[in-house]
Structures are given as structure tokens and as C-alpha cells.
């Protein structure tokens, strides 16, 4: 099929639409006065849900820190404090994302808007890798100063190695959960659930946009 035939076919399509496309003006008027569920609403609600859960968990930990204090519980206070700190980082990041979602301008160029949107979806991963750093602090909640003095072999051979393993795992995850690793098997297995599908799709789409842009950069 030649160029001219393609365009002739398109013109036939245009004529067909011209003849038979009916616009319901009454419904457009109705739409102008209604609050419609936006395509971005699911992304917004997901971030709002994470903020609410983060605030709840931070509140519970804050309350426990206030109620359970004393020299014997110093490890709990420090651990819970660190977990609260990481959660606050997550909450602030998600609030920032909500502001950015609100600022998305569909009348901007297609590549700019789509890149912005896909980055926002993929950014859930960036927050997640920071949140993984709080993992070891969950293992130190019940440590007491007495354990270090009188804990004996059991403490040093079972409890401490668990904390060290969690520390190593959290640092490894922090360093390796990156978009560049999204093709690796462990990454795909880890983020395989339906809740991660929008994020992994966003990553794939970012790559598609980048390929478009890379070609563009070469030509410039």
C-alpha cells in the first residue's frame, strides 16, 4: 500500500465520521457540571492510602514511645524512633507526589506529560527502597542493655546475627532496587503482584520514552 492510498483511506474514514458521528451536546453540558472520576484518581488514591497507613503506623509507634520509656527500653525508643523517621520520609515523599500529580498538565507535549506520569508511578519504588532501610530496626525493638551483658551465647549467636542479616539485606535492597535492574529475575519475582503491575508497566513505558528521546538526542 502506497502513501497516497494510506491517505485516501484516512480521508474515507474522515468522511465516514463526518457523515455518521453524532455528538450528544446535552451530555457534554452535563459533564461540564460534574466531577468525573479522573484517570489519575487511582494513582492519587493509592498515594493517599499509603500516606494514611504511614500516619497510622507512625502514630501508634509515637504513642508507644511516649508510654514505654525508661533506661531498660532505650533500644525500643531508638528503634521505634528510627522507624518513625523512615516513615516520615515516606509520608513526605508521597505528599510531594500528590502535589506533582495535581500539577500534571495534559496540554503539555505528549512525551513530557507521559514521562512525568510514568516517573511518578515508578517513584513508588524509590520510596520503597528507602523504607527497606528500616527493616533492621524491627529486630532491635526488644533489645535491652542487660542482654548485651548477660545475654550469653544464645544472644550473640542467634539474635545478633538476625539483626546483622536484616541490616545486610536492607542495604542490599536499597542499593539494588533501581529501574536499571528491572529486567533481572529477582526484581521481576519481587515485584510480580498485581499491586506492582502499574509500577512495572510505568518502568517499561519509561524505557520506551527514553528510546524515543535517545534517538532524538543523537540527531540534535
Amino acid at each position, binding site marked *: 500500500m502506497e502513501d497516497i492510498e494510506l491517505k485516501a483511506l484516512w480521508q474515507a474514514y474522515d468522511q465516514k465520521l463526518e457523515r455518521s458521528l453524532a455528538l450528544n451536546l446535552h451530555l457534554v453540558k452535563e459533564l461540564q457540571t460534574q466531577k468525573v472520576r479522573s484517570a489519575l484518581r487511582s494513582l492519587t488514591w493509592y498515594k493517599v492510602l499509603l500516606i494514611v497507613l504511614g500516619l497510622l503506623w507512625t502514630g501508634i509507634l509515637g504513642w508507644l514511645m511516649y508510654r514505654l520509656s525508661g533506661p531498660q527500653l532505650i533500644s525500643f525508643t531508638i528503634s521505634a524512633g528510627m522507624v518513625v523517621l523512615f516513615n516520615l520520609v515516606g509520608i513526605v515523599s508521597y505528599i510531594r507526589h500528590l502535589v506533582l500529580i495535581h500539577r500534571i498538565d495534559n*496540554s503539555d507535549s505528549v512525551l513530557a506529560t507521559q514521562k512525568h506520569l510514568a516517573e511518578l508511578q515508578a517513584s513508588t519504588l524509590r520510596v520503597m527502597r528507602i523504607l527497606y532501610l528500616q527493616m533492621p530496626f524491627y529486630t532491635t525493638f526488644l533489645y535491652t542493655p542487660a542482654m548485651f551483658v548477660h545475654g550469653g551465647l544464645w544472644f550473640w549467636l542467634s539474635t545478633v546475627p538476625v539483626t546483622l542479616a536484616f541490616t545486610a539485606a536492607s542495604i542490599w535492597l536499597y542499593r539494588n532496587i533501581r529501574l536499571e535492574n528491572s529486567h533481572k529475575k529477582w526484581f521481576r519475582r519481587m515485584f510480580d503482584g498485581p499491586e506492582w503491575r502499574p509500577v512495572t508497566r510505568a518502568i517499561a513505558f519509561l524505557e520506551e520514552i527514553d528510546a524515543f528521546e535517545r534517538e532524538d538526542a543523537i540527531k540534535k
Partner: protein
Amino acid sequence: MDFEQATADRFLSVIAEYKGIIYKVASFYCRQAEDRKDLVQEIIYQLWRSFPQYNEQYKLSTWMYKVALNVSISFYRKDKRRQEHSSVLTDSILDLVPDNGPPETEQHLQLLQQLINELPPLERALMILYLEEKSYREIAEILGLTETNTATKISRVKDKLKQKFRNY
């Protein structure tokens, strides 16, 4: 007539004039009639939201393509399995009433739609704009590419499309 009413009326006339753009873009990103109804609604709603900020220095069709393509690509990227019908309206805003054109043209049109639908979303946008006979400059502006790159890409996607046609 107050300003708001004048804006609303102007918007209605713009939609009536450019309804073909909305339908075409929606139909190339969404083949299911029920989902397309949602997509058309979302495009018109986003156009309405963006209308007060429309910069008259650009063509209306450029603005309309940007919004329609952005909304359609975002809609297309949503996980179909989790996608809910979000219509607040029970009927379709845009309806294609049955039209019996020449059977051969109808057949070719369906094939063209199918083949464009098989392209990745960004290439699809490029092809729609090319077939709409937009200038390279306008296509580049809508998509956010340079003109040179737009020309190269169009040539490549066009070849791909022609090849697919030959294979059918």
C-alpha cells in the same frame, strides 16, 4: 451573558467542531465500545478542565491533540484487569451511527485501524498525526520531539505499516 456561560458555550462549539479528533484518537487507543465511552468522557472532561488555560497563540487542534493523546495514552496504560468503568453518564457522548460505505473501503478501513492499533502507543500517536496531514512542525510540537527526528520516525513507522499491509 456572564463570562462563565460564554466560556461554556464556546467550549461546546469547539467540541462540536473538533469531535472527529476526539473520536479518532479514542478509537485508536481503545477498541472496546464500553471502555471507549469512558475514554471519550475523560478526554472531554480534561479538555474542559484545561480550556480556561488554552493559549490562543497555538492552534486549537494542536491543544486538542495534546490533551486527547495524553489522556488516551494514560488510559491505555492502565491495567485493563483492574480498570473499572468510570462513566457518570449512561449514554455515549459520541456515537457512530451505522453507515454502509463501499464494502472494500470498509474492509480496508478496519484493517488500517487494526494495524495502527498494533503499533506501540507513541508510534501510534505519530501515525495518527501523520495521516491527519499535520505538518512535521506541528507533530513535533504535539509530541515533544525535534522536527528532524519526527521526519525520520514517520518514515520508519510508515514503512512498518506498509509492510504489515503487504503481509495481509
